[in-house]
């Protein structure tokens, strides 16, 4: 099958174009390095089916990061390149174009973000550019869909230019780029847009810090407000009014107890179904993912999507750079970390944008220890929050302190280097609501598809292990650590063990134990730190390799032991 590659600088809109071309929706954001692996899709070209690959962005074909290495490797296996260019940034983008034209692979150029050129005062003579490059140039916009049809129609015209030449030095190539730009581009004066004034404020020395703190609090407040709002007014009532009566009937049919009743509906609490405590597949197994967690997932990914597409995150990276250097990272590592607050898996995958092995190890380890995913956070806010918001703050505070201290230690202990930050800061953009909505849907439906089966599986496993009496055996073995160090009842181990499958289910298992506020704080902190869930575990193994995975797990266990004990002493 013919293989077409989408190649271009980071953050020029390759992923948005990919979605347009294949109809496969993938995550696109306004910062360099959104795509770290490669995404495959298919499109029809006449009668022929062809493969399209969204290649991670690269400034040059001489790679410096792991994501760029992936890009260069893949170039060897493509039949045709669609070189995506940011029309508002012609000069730097053409440097890569000329490097591509040296490679004897047919190229077609997509002059993307064409809709953005006018208000930026950029005028480009497209016919002239086509003539100078010797390959077709098509004006496109991944956001509006402009030019997509023409791009597909003219794919067959992609070619190796007749006048292709190989530049001996980077200087020669840049000279040629300058020559082309001076012939095809003219700039006219334009006015600042209102959000560009915001750009100035967010990179101001003091104003920027103020804005970052404000954003952090606003985000947390918004997520909690929206999440709770959906639970109290939509998800909760829906379950109570529509699902509870169905389960109640089923409960009677099944005879209110016995094996199948316990597995499907769970134990009745005071003669009624309790969605947190019953622990049946159809009660707790559905309630936790759909009613307790999903609302927070929606709220979190809505805010994240907006922050991503506006282009705020790279500015936050600059601001955090000095602190992150103390932890053996640089500022850009804040982006994988923030993604980790949604789900650790994409967060850890995003550590590929970091340049050195040391950085990737520290960033991935810190995410899996100190960054609770949205599912876990939803349950922490829900269950610990009942005792008072101060206790929720204690959990977050403990995790933050662990993040700092483990980072400081790892920075000294791990060998390797920590290069400095060097990153393009994209312009602020106002994303259309449609784009935000599509991305939110993509992530939320991804959560439902991936998490729901695992949650139900976890609830099933819990039931089976209970029936087999396995938990009692483990509880007795681990009792010294749990009661001695952490001051928790030995039954908590069942929750911690289930945390390996799903952390939200594990939190749910704490409910029937009737823990006091202090014990809740300790058990949620330990649950967050001790061990990643199985999905995170697999991705850690893949990204770090087995040896580093074991090191990371070692750090997790020690950190959780120490932190839990400290909390037990101090609180």
């Amino acid at each position, binding site marked *: 099958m013919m293989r077409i590659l989408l190649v271009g600088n980071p953050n020029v809109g390759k992923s948005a174009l990919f979605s347009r071309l294949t109809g496969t929706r993938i995550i696109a954001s306004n910062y360099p390095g959104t795509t770290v692996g490669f995404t495959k899709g298919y499109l029809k070209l006449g009668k022929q089916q062809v493969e399209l690959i969204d290649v991670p962005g690269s*400034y*040059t074909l*001489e790679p*410096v990061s792991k994501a760029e290495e992936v890009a260069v490797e893949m170039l060897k296996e493509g039949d045709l390149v669609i070189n995506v260019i940011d029309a*508002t*940034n012609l*000069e*730097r983008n053409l*440097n890569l174009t000329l490097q591509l034209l040296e490679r004897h692979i047919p190229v077609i150029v997509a002059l993307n973000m064409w809709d953005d050129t006018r208000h*930026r005062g*950029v005028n480009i003579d497209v016919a002239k550019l086509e003539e100078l490059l010797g390959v077709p140039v098509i004006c496109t916009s991944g956001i509006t869909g402009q030019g997509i049809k023409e791009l597909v129609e003219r794919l067959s015209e992609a070619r190796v230019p007749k006048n292709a030449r190989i530049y001996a030095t*980077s200087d020669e190539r*840049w000279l040629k780029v300058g020559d082309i730009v001076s012939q095809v581009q003219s700039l006219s004066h334009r006015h600042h847009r209102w959000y560009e004034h915001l750009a100035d404020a967010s*990179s*101001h*020395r*003091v104003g*920027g*810090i103020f804005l970052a703190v404000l954003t952090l609090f606003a985000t947390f407040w918004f997520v909690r407000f929206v999440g709770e709002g959906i639970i109290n007014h939509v998800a909760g009532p829906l379950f109570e009014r529509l699902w509870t009566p169905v389960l109640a009937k089923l409960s009677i049919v099944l005879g209110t107890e016995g094996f199948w009743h316990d597995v499907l509906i769970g134990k009745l609490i005071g003669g009624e179904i309790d969605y947190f405590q019953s622990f049946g597949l159809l009660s707790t197994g559905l309630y936790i993912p759909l009613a307790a967690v999903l609302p927070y997932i929606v709220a979190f990914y809505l805010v994240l999507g907006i922050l991503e597409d506006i282009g705020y995150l*790279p500015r936050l*990276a*600059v*601001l955090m*750079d*000095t602190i992150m250097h103390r932890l053996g990272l*640089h*500022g850009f590592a804040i982006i994988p970390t923030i993604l980790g607050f949604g789900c650790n898996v994409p967060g850890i995958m995003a550590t590929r944008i970091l340049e050195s092995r040391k950085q990737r190890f520290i960033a991935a380890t810190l995410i899996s220890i100190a960054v609770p995913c949205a599912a876990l956070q939803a349950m922490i806010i829900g269950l610990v929050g009942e005792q008072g918001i101060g206790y929720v703050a204690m959990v977050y505070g403990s995790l933050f302190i662990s993040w700092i201290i483990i980072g400081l230690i790892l920075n000294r202990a791990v060998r390797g280097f920590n290069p*400095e*930050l*060097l*990153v*393009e*800061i*994209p*312009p602020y953009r106002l994303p259309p609501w449609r784009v935000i909505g599509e991305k939110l849907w993509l992530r939320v439906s991804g959560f439902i598809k991936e998490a729901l089966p695992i949650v139900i599986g976890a609830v099933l496993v819990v039931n089976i292990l209970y029936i087999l009496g396995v938990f009692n055996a483990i509880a007795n073995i681990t009792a010294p650590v749990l009661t001695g160090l952490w001051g928790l009842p030995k039954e908590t181990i069942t929750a911690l063990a289930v945390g390996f499958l799903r952390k939200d289910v594990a939190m749910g298992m704490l409910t029937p134990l009737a823990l006091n506020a202090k014990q809740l704080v300790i058990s949620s902190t330990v649950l967050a730190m001790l061990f990643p869930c199985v999905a995170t575990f697999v991705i850690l193994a893949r990204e770090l390799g087995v040896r580093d995975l074991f090191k990371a797990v070692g750090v997790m266990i020690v950190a959780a032991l120490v932190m839990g004990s400290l909390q037990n002493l101090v609180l």
Partner: protein
Amino acid sequence: MTRYPEGQLTLAEMKTGQTGIVVEVMGGHGLIQRLDALGIRPGRKVTKLSSTLFRGPVMLRVDSTQVAVGFGMARKIIVEADKYRPRTS
């Protein structure tokens, strides 16, 4: 007491809003290459947009691109700067 010829200074020493022409990148091959790919290379005009507290990254504009470079890197980028004029707008 500057180590460089008159009018030359590092990007780190430039004032916010000041513009200059890159003269040299005093770094290893790797650094030169990384900066080169972003268009930060001798002969190119750059404008310093801002700096961050505690020797954090320096933001600059080159062509229509904004780039953030670490403080250490900024000290290795030698610039022939224009006379500093405070911004009026």
